[in-house]
């Protein structure tokens, strides 16, 4: 495993950081955007802005969670202790994003909301990603790992990969042309998933080789 110079020092510093307050820090942007929205300080189209900002942050936390392992393998720097927090914050922002859409944007117009949920690909993708995150959030505590057993828990939590991919496509699919921002997110997500796929192929080959040797 390649180790970047100074990785040990960084890891030591990271170990000293408590994770608890991280949740509060992670929710500061939500408080910031929601406050501005209620003060009507988000410009001409505040609902769209709030929706967009909350969605972007959800995607950013998903990307952060997905980047933990590649970062550790590339540099030796480990954010593993914070991965659960990244995931749960991503879920919290996804819920806030969805609630904004439901309540402020579509204004609880249920017939039209339901029609959108079955008809509009970008909404179906976003909704599917959110649904995938629910079992992950629900089994994010230590005891759930013991209940499920490590292997099953890890298999379940691979749902984070398709959820992040769907979220990135959801972003591209709702814009009018090909603006840079959603494409950049999609590129980063694609790279992270490719890294995982590569890792999976290697470890499978290793496993197969190991079985032959035995």
């Amino acid at each position, binding site marked *: 495993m390649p180790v970047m110079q100074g990785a040990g020092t960084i890891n030591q510093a990271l170990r000293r950081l408590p994770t608890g307050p991280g949740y509060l820090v992670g929710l500061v942007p939500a408080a910031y955007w929601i406050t501005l929205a209620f003060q009507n300080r988000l*410009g001409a189209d505040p609902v*769209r802005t709030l929706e967009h900002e909350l969605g972007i942050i959800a995607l950013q936390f998903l990307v952060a969670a997905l980047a933990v392992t590649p970062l550790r393998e590339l540099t030796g720097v480990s954010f593993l202790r914070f991965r659960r927090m990244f995931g749960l914050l991503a879920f919290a922002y996804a819920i806030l994003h969805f609630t904004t859409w439901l309540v402020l944007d579509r204004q609880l*117009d249920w017939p*039209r909301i339901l029609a959108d949920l079955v008809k*509009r690909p*970008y909404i179906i993708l976003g909704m599917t990603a959110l649904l995938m995150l629910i079992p992950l959030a629900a089994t994010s505590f230590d005891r759930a790992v013991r209940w499920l057993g490590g292997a099953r828990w890890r298999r379940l939590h691979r749902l984070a990969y398709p959820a992040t991919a769907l979220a990135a496509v959801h972003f591209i699919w709702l814009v*009018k042309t090909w603006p840079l921002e959603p494409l950049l997110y999609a590129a980063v997500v694609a790279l992270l998933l490719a890294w995982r796929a590569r890792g999976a192929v290697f470890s499978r080959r290793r496993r197969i080789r190991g079985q032959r040797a035995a």
Partner: protein
Amino acid sequence: MRRKLGYADVTPKNLYLSRRTLMAGAAGLAAGALLPGGALARIAAEASPYSIDATPTAYEDITSYNNFYEFGVDKGDPKAHAGALTTEPWSVVIDGLVGRPGTYPLEDLVAPARLEERIYRLRCVEGWSMVIPWIGFPLADVLSRAEPGSGARYVAFETLMRPEEMPGQRGFFQPLDWPYVEGLRLDEAMHPLTILATGLYGEELPNQNGAPLRLVVPWKYGFKSIKSIVRITLTADQPPTTWNLQNPREYGFYSNVNPAVDHPRWSQATERVIGGGIFAPRRETELFNGYAEEVGHLYAGMDLTVHY
């Protein structure tokens, strides 16, 4: 001793005054009319029976939330970058199937016009709307003076192409093909609701809203109302239009506001109302943006789901 001639010598007084409304010298004529933009003086314009009875969206919102991709794809980009656009002098080429083709200085197009205030709702294809008090005059006036030929059936429009002043037209990443082009059927173009706008809220058009001359077709989605026009061409065949070229399945030539015909990716049944804060109720989108009575006959017998 001969003085060098300037614009003021050849331009009708009401026009050059209107073009300099923001200057201190006009303050005396302004009668203290204080505008939301903070500027003094108003362009003299008559009220119009075509105006809708709705409270206009705030000036700040109308001039800071714009789709004008020549200046960037974000809604705030036009306001941030359009200041550098030179709109004086400006001329418009009128050509194609007309009896009097030529390059017309903007002043010549605007001078004969009786300016009107037209309060229209602008419905964007993205699913939002705002109410804008335009200052303008019927496009039909300009077209009639150019004498359309008997074979003319369509009108093509073109926006300025000037990458050195339009950052959205520069660089590696181009969202659309430039110049931006739009088109109308001749009967749509001649309809009294169709105007060329030179101002809004009693002021000259801010650059981000399509200065110095833009089209406003209130029963169609906003992107049909092409900005900063430099060419008007009368044609026999349906002209290409920018968004239709970008994605023909999503943006048709007609692009009439129609709650029953969805964008392939989203519903057009309702619209977010700009400027009302986060609890502003959505609006039910109206057929032809509320002008079904005035323009419905233009599409009699047409299947609007095919000619979207």
